Every structure is written in C-alpha cells, then in structure tokens.
C-alpha cells in the first residue's frame, strides 16, 4: 500500500514537472526571492514546530517520537 502511494505521488510530481508552466527568466524572479515567499523562512522555528508536533500528535513528522529525545510525556 505504501509503495503504491509512493508511485502515485511520484506520478503526480512528474505531471507537475511536465506541466506547461510559464517560462520565467532569471531577472523575473525578484518576487519569488522575497523573504516572505520563502518555503522555510525560519529554520529554528520549523525545527521547534516539528519537535512539538512530533511529541503531541501521532502523525507529525511522519512517525512518532523517533530520535531527538523521547518527547513521550
């Protein structure tokens, strides 16, 4: 089941890659480079977020409290 889902997602990723996106020249990417367009603007905040949700939710981070301390309370 897991492998089947992986293949499905990889197929979707391929479709994204092959989709007819607009050609964006390097000098047209100023807006994409703005700090508030970043996919992860704050690594430390993302890290503490992941640690918090890993400790309190069954699904956060893809599994339970693996590594990085128990977080089991």
């Amino acid at each position, binding site marked *: 089941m897991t492998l089947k889902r992986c293949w499905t997602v990889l197929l979707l990723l391929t479709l994204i890659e092959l989709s007819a996106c607009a050609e964006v020249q390097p000098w047209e990417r100023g807006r994409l480079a703005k700090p508030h367009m970043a996919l992860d603007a704050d690594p430390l905040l*993302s890290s503490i977020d992941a640690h918090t949700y890993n400790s309190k939710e*069954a699904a956060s981070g893809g599994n339970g409290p693996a590594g990085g301390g128990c977080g089991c309370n």
Partner: protein
Amino acid sequence: MKKLSRTASSLLVSSLSLPGFTELLAAESEANNFQYRYTLYDEEPLPQNVLAQGDPDRYRIKSHQFRFEQDLNERFTLTVEGIHESMSGSSPWYVFPDPDRGPLQVMSGATISETRNEIGLTLGTQNNGVTHAFRGGYSTENDYDAVSAAYTGEYEQQNKHTTLSWGVSYSDDRLSPTDAELFGRIPHAERNSISASFGLTRILNRNALIQSGVQITHQDGFLSDPYKEMWINGGVFFDKRPDQRTAFSWTTRFRQYFVGSNAALHADYRFYDDDWSVTAHTLDLAWHQPFGENFELAPSIRYHSQRAANFYQPAITDGQQPKYWSSDYRLATYGAMRYRLSGTWRAEIWSLALNADIYNSSESLALSGPLFDTPALVDFWRISLGWQISWQ
C-alpha cells in the same frame, strides 16, 4: 559556494521525523549567520471534572536553540545547531473507567523534571552541479539517548525552474526509563528509525512556486511508551504497541505572491498514513503581509485531524484480550486547531521575530475515525522569540 537552496532545503521539513533530517533540510541562508531562539511552551491544566488522581498541572518546557552557519572555503560549509530544553510538570498515565462519571484521567505526580540537550553538525559541499549535505547528531536526556545521521542532496536543472531533492536518515535510540525498578518498567530498550524522501520544487510563474515530496519512515524496536499504562478488565498494564511501524507522508507547499498588496499566501498540506491505521490530514495557511521596508506581520492557522491507531482505546472493560493496546491520547482520533501570530523585523544584517501560538484539540474536530472520550487531549500556548545576525 552554493548552499542548499531555500526552496529545496526546506523540502518536506514539516513532514520529516528524524532529527538529523529536519535540521539538515532546513539548512539554507543567504550568508554566514548566527541564530538564537527562545521558546516557552505551556500546557493547560487537566480539568478537575476529568481528573481521577495525580497532579493536573501538565508540561511546561523552556527551549534555547542556536544555529551557526559559516563557509569554510569555496567548497565547504559548516553548520552547527543545538538545543537545550528543560521540562517539568505531570504526564497522563492511564484512563480509569468510572462507572458513574465516565472516563477519568490518572496523572503522574508533579515530580517530572528533566533536561534535554541536542547537538548537530552538518557539512555541505557541491560536486558536478549536485549539492550534498551530511549531518550527524546526538541528543541526550536522563532516560533517552539518540544518535542520528543523515544525507540529503539536490540538483537544480539548467533552466533553474525545477529542483530535485532526495535524502536518507537513520536514528539509533536507547531508552532507560526513570524509576524502572520502583514501578516495574522496562529497564532498558532500543529502537531505530530509517527514512527516505524524494521531492521536487517547481517555479510555476513569476508569482508562484510549488514544492511536493514523499517520505517513507520505518521504525523498529521498542515503540511503546514506557510510562503509559492502560486499564484492562480491572487491572493496569503497561502500554504495548507493535515493534514495527512503517509510515508514508506526502507534503505539498504552495507560495503565491500578490502584487497589489506585496503579500504572500503560504499553503501547506500533508497527508500521512501508517500501518498502525493512523491516517492524518494537516493543513497550514499563512498570510505574510509586509508593512514598510522592515516589518512583516503573519497570521496563520493550522488544522490537524487524525484517525486513531487500531489498538487505541481509553480502557478495556468488556473482557477483550487484545494483542496490542494503548490508551495514549496521542494515538486517539481527534482534531486540533493552532492559531499563530508572527511579527518579524528585518534590518540590514539582523532580524528579530516573535511568534505566539494557541493550540486546542478535541474529538469533535476530527474528520473521521472511531471516537472515544479522550480526557487527556492537550491544549497549550507557546511564545517564541528569535534573533539572527548575518555576515559575509
């Protein structure tokens, strides 16, 4: 040298589980830099009407994080990050099925007080157009030690419209529960995790980009919580979960820039599924609105819904003798909302960020799944202050 790009390095960061992976992929900055962040996390007390015994005051955690990144030469970049946490408060043990008042939560005493320290080193380099990063990490607390290693790579296509990213990670964990002899807990145990991921980041147009990726994680060993117990037909037994778990997650992130308001919409979604029958959907939406040259305000909302593990029950009273069991509320069916307001001040070489969170969880917020009364579901608030300075 070329560092891991901001787009690719953050790939899957919200879905990643192993500590090395998370920090490794969140690894890009514009220049050499140092960051520090202080976070205060506080759980709401358990309501008296669902408390059977123990201390209702739950966890309070103070965290200090730092991160230092420096180019060593033209080819190599070194990143060092660490965290020191101090934790105190009480923790849920098991659910007592009171025939008159319904399920009541038994808590530990307020004797838990511990610290955790983690350090990680990442070496990044580039070879033939592919950026590589190798990370090693170590985390220790009085009852838990973890050693982790991770590798991630990325390849940016020549037109720079698409970046491919991939990674693997491994963690070896050792448990030595507190007061094992006194309470009859397992004295020593081990577990390990291995994870692999693949993703793609694509520029859609001059105002939008998308990132999508999958991750598979396999855990092996003692996966039960040595402190959790369960009421089974009149007796109390330690938590007993399967000794393997395989999880799948698919994360997609979308960024859209709005020219008129100079604002950005962030939309992140994660689907999660594992062989314990846990299925979850997590959606995070944020609106980043700059005011002037230096200040930005970002309200955000996060919704999480999960379906219970197939061996979860608050308590067993009907004579069943299952192979596995757990009354850990984190494996229950429930939903949760998190509300956040962030403010960031950016100057020439430094920035300051303040984040305030409120998190509420409830059975009624779940999309689907077997519903039980779960008295230990947690509500918390969190406040966090971050500071960064950069140099060439």
